[in-house]
């Protein structure tokens, strides 16, 4: 009777020790990878920085076209030639080139942010967020595409 009691007690202790050890390992295993995956958006990746620099350099060239209304901000987070007549004939080709280069960068930016955060499926949401913020932050006089077409801010 006594022997049985001792046996079950030591078994209980063994089980408890095992459980504690298991939890400890789980805790260590779970903590380290997720510590970095906080609810945050990482934008300091080399790819994102490179795209950002490229866009920043292009912006000085694009800015006069935004201001004149020749180029506007679209609903899908890109830019487009809104009014080709606002551009001098000699400059039309360069505007088209700037717009397509800018759009390539913007598409890459949204993709890289989604990829850089380990969620490629977030690309559309990143794009929608940017579209909204570009439009919101655009200075007065720029053209922004809304649900009902182009609007001058």
């Amino acid at each position: 009777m006594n022997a049985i009691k001792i046996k079950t007690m030591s078994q209980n202790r063994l089980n408890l020790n095992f459980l504690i050890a298991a939890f400890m390992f789980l805790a260590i295993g779970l903590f380290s990878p997720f510590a970095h995956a906080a609810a945050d958006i990482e934008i300091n990746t080399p790819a994102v920085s490179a795209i950002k620099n490229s866009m920043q350099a292009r912006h000085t060239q694009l800015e006069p076209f935004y201001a004149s209304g020749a180029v506007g901000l679209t609903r899908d987070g890109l830019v487009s030639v809104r009014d080709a007549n606002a551009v001098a004939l000699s400059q039309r080709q360069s505007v088209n080139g700037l717009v397509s280069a800018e759009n390539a960068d913007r598409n890459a930016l949204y993709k890289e942010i989604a990829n850089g955060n380990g969620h490629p499926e977030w690309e559309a949401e990143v794009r929608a967020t940017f579209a909204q913020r570009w439009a919101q932050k655009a200075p007065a006089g720029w053209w922004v595409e809304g649900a009902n077409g182009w609007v001058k801010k």
Partner: protein
Amino acid sequence: MNKWKIALLIALLPMLLLPACVTINIYFPAAAAEKAADKIIDDVWQLKQPKDKAPDAPDATTPAK
């Protein structure tokens, strides 16, 4: 002794469960994305120049805060 171990176990449980709940981003973190977008837009359009320039020349542009 056993009570102590059980207490330790109970103390460990939230440590396990809390990070699992907080950090697995299944849903798109809209607020964080907006903040990130604003940061990038400010940089690209150079909307906040004095703030951006500060790290480049810490001596020259340190406005009294």
